[in-house]
């Protein structure tokens, strides 16, 4: 493997602790590395530094040198080099490290500065935490406990600003809560490339608003809600649905496209309330498209497939049907299945001696976090050996085989065959075993339906466009009457062939590692939260459809 170039390191001293940090790091990030929290509002690691909240003020100094000789000046009291402390506080976000930099984050000057800023931020704030949706994840609330005065010296009239402004279809703004940090403005302008937000009016009357005749309606608008440090920007969908401290957070992967956006699923008592992005500097930074955040709604949708029949009976029914038509079976796998499911699909196809095809799903990418390939895991199918070529959108050769009478049964893993080009007449000619979550034309026509679960109800891995294997974890229990895909596949394999295969990640992975060369070195539990990059050279020649997105450049073919 090629080692990344070692960054130039700079040694700095933060609250007496020495640490070497990469050149170009700012004081907030350097302090984070020694577990020192520098409170801040406007600074965001993925946005331009503006230094306007003044909460991250720190005291800084440089080692003293004699101006003439450049020799270090030694402090006789300590025997160490004297530090020239700058008499006024500096912003941590806008201060990049330099060799020998000394920083104090707990000195009286810093404490005084933080308390001053905190008081200023609160004087015109409505202090409506009990009815504010941000409560529990509000930086103003958090830092008020650390630096707040505890009582107010402000007896004047507070500023009055617009409440409940609809900035766009998904974002609601309360201007009175806004601390004017400008994160949302910078995000829209610099990341989403939709410059729609700005301030009007001056001084403390400054008000966040959309530019005239513009709306905050781009597909990344909810990121402004995520990065809003206070309760000014809230999600119209999520607000007032649930207090955040009641919610359980589960790491997941967005299935919207092959980007594989890292996400967090927030749920309580088996119900999902929202999805937010999870930071992964190699994939999605801290962002996520709005369209990926509503995918959880499919869990509770009315057209979910369920069955009262126990899985063993469904499996034996499927096996009976398939064994009867042995030799004339085709398997349609899925680029939406997890790596583990694709591995078992391959096992099933082998047991049935059936050819495997896959359905591709493509659309225009947005150059940011939605790629052209809308299947999250086509590369998983390649890596597991389920298929060896890229899929096409239409199952034309399968259709021809049906017409020729060569295929009499199809096992479809969640793919709607009519959507993939089979006619109703062709579908009527074959016996279909359908594994799937939601009702469609294929499930309606199927002889056997195996109700399975959504990505939120199971664990597994996907391999994204970078050939990065990333894991997602079950957030909520499976819907009653739906079965985990791995268990369902394993049961059918056993029913068809008599062989037993592991149906759980812990036992399945050693088998995957043994049989799939690209995954030989790993186990599910060992895959880090930010994923693991695989060696993509075996598939380098394939004409993948993705164009450039954030942190991804297509290989030049």
């Amino acid at each position, binding site marked *: 493997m090629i080692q990344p170039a070692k960054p130039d390191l700079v040694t700095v001293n933060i609250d007496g602790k020495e640490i070497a940090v990469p050149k170009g790091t700012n004081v907030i990030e350097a302090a984070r590395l020694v577990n020192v929290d520098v409170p801040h509002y406007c600074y965001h690691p993925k946005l331009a530094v503006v*230094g306007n909240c003044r909460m991250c003020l720190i005291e800084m100094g440089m080692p003293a040198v004699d101006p003439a000789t450049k020799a270090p000046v030694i402090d006789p009291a300590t025997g160490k080099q004297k530090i020239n402390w700058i008499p006024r*506080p500096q912003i941590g976000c806008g201060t990049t490290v330099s060799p020998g930099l000394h920083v104090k984050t707990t000195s009286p000057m810093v404490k005084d500065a933080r308390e001053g800023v905190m008081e*200023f931020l609160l004087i015109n704030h409505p202090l409506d935490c009990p009815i504010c949706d941000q409560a529990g994840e509000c930086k103003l609330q958090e830092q008020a406990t650390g630096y707040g005065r505890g009582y107010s010296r402000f007896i004047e009239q507070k500023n009055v600003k617009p409440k409940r402004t609809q900035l766009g279809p998904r974002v609601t703004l309360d201007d009175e809560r806004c601390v004017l940090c400008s994160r949302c403005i910078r995000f829209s302008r610099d990341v989403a490339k939709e410059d729609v937000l700005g301030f009007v009016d001056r*001084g*403390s009357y400054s008000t966040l608003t959309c530019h005239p005749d513009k709306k905050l309606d781009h597909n990344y608008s909810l990121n402004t809600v995520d990065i809003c440090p206070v309760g000014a920007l809230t999600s119209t969908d999520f607000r007032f649905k649930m207090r955040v401290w009641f919610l359980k957070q589960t790491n997941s992967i967005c299935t919207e496209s092959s980007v594989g956006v890292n996400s967090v699923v927030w749920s309580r008592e088996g119900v999902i309330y929202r999805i937010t992005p999870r930071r992964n500097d190699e994939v999605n930074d801290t962002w996520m498209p709005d369209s990926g955040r509503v995918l959880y709604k499919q869990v509770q949708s009315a057209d979910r497939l369920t069955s009262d029949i126990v899985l063993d009976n469904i499996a034996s029914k499927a096996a009976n049907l398939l064994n009867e038509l042995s030799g004339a079976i085709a398997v349609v796998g899925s680029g939406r299945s997890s790596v583990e499911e694709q591995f078992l699909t391959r096992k099933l196809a082998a047991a049935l001696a059936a050819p495997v095809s896959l359905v591709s799903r493509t659309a225009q990418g947005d150059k940011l976090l939605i790629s052209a390939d809308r299947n999250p895991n086509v590369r998983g199918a390649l890596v597991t050996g389920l298929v060896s070529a890229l899929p096409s959108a239409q199952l034309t050769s399968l259709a021809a085989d049906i017409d020729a009478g060569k295929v009499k049964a199809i096992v479809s893993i969640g793919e709607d065959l009519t959507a993939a080009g089979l006619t109703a007449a062709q579908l009527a000619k074959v016996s279909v075993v359908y594994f799937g979550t939601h009702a469609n034309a294929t499930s309606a026509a199927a002889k056997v339906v195996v109700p399975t679960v959504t990505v939120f109800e199971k664990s597994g891995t996907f391999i994204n466009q970078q050939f990065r294997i990333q894991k997602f974890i079950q957030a909520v229990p499976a819907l009653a009457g739906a079965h985990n895909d791995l268990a369902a596949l394993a049961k059918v394999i056993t029913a068809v062939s008599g062989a037993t295969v592991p149906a759980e990640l812990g036992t399945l992975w050693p088998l995957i590692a043994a049989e799939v060369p690209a995954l030989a070195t790993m186990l599910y539990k060992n895959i880090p939260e930010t994923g693991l990059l695989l060696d993509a050279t075996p598939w380098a020649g394939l004409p993948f459809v993705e164009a450039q997105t954030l942190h991804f450049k297509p290989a030049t073919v």
Partner: protein
Amino acid sequence: MSAPAQHRIIFKHIDEPGYTNDIECYLRHGGYEVLRKSVTRKPEELIDEVKKSGLRGRGGAGFPCGVKWGLVDRKSGKPIYLIVNADESEPGTFKDRYIMHQDPHQLIEGTIISCFANNVKQAYIYIRGEMPEGARILERAIAEARSRNFVGPNILGTGYSCEIYVHRGAGAYICGEETGLIESLEGKRANPRIKPPYFPAVLGLYQCPTIVNNVETLCQVKYIADVGGEAYAKIGTPGNTGTRIFCVSGHVQRPGYYEFPAGTITMGQLLNDVCGGPLPGRTFKAVIPGGSSAKVLKFGERYKGKRKVGADMVDYDWGVEDVPMDFDSLAMIGSMGGSGGVIVMDDTVNMVEALANINAFYSHESCGQCTPCREGSLWMKKISSRMVHGDARPQDGALLKSVADQIPGRTICAFGEACSWPTQSFITKFKDEFDSYSEVKKTLPADRRVLV
């Protein structure tokens, strides 16, 4: 000791009968001769003259002009811009407006000389939005100068080309702050930039090296290019060379503008001898020496310490009247020379009401970008306005001071200091007036003039 005579360099022709602001008049008075002379010299020589002159910026901070020019990044290969800061907005200051209205060609000549010295191809005059007349005059003057080949391509046949554009502000004090001005010139809200990294000399207008000089400073440069840096340095006092224009307003017999060699006149001479002293039957109470953001001086207080005279340190013990009107002496006694706007208040002024007025101005002009200034300036205004128009509490003075103390040194630009220094100094020096205002108010006539 009576006051020295005025020494008019910049204001030589201001209000001179018969002097008009067209180019013919300027040329009749020797106009553009310095430019003709300067473009035959090496640019580095001109920069050296400015360095030798010891000229300090006349916008308010008094930063040495030669040092500012020396900081410009000339290696980046990017174009260098020069911006004339004509956003004269500091309350009490009205010198640049006179220059632009009555002697615009002096500014244009100084600008082109400075551009030539710094290899600037494009200059902007950023003029305050409230001065439409000045903008019209400058536009016309630039057109005149262009028709005579003093501005534009191939100036005076030298092969050197330079354009000057006039840009009108939209009426915001903060545009006088150089990085706020640059943002505004780029078409954005005038939010000052953080320094580091956005020092104008390196990353200024359009991220290119940029020089921002005050109107009067550039006129001084023209004079320096004429007489030479060494001759200029002999005017005034060491460290405070050249002349200073004082804009005296308020309670004196003869308010107006006065130009003196820097440091040669004391506050007492200026107010009593030059401006004719207090109005009949009144006495001076306080004076703000350098625009409304400078810390107020109280008549009757003494300033003591040691100061450098030549190589020696000597003791000084000054009253307000004894303070020499130069950057260093005023800084030494805790205020500043600033923009030269001298605001005089006599014994009829209630300091609480005066401060309420100043606070109203600064809260209105805070850009709103960074927290301490944005929230602090309005809070101070709300307190002082309430004291005047509503209920005054005995503890309000202390509260005001405490709020003001939370602002300076913690903001992006110097507005933090500008908005808090008046409050800090007013309350430190006139504490009793603030403490007793709730009582005093009851005795004030009901029909007194109401503040803004």
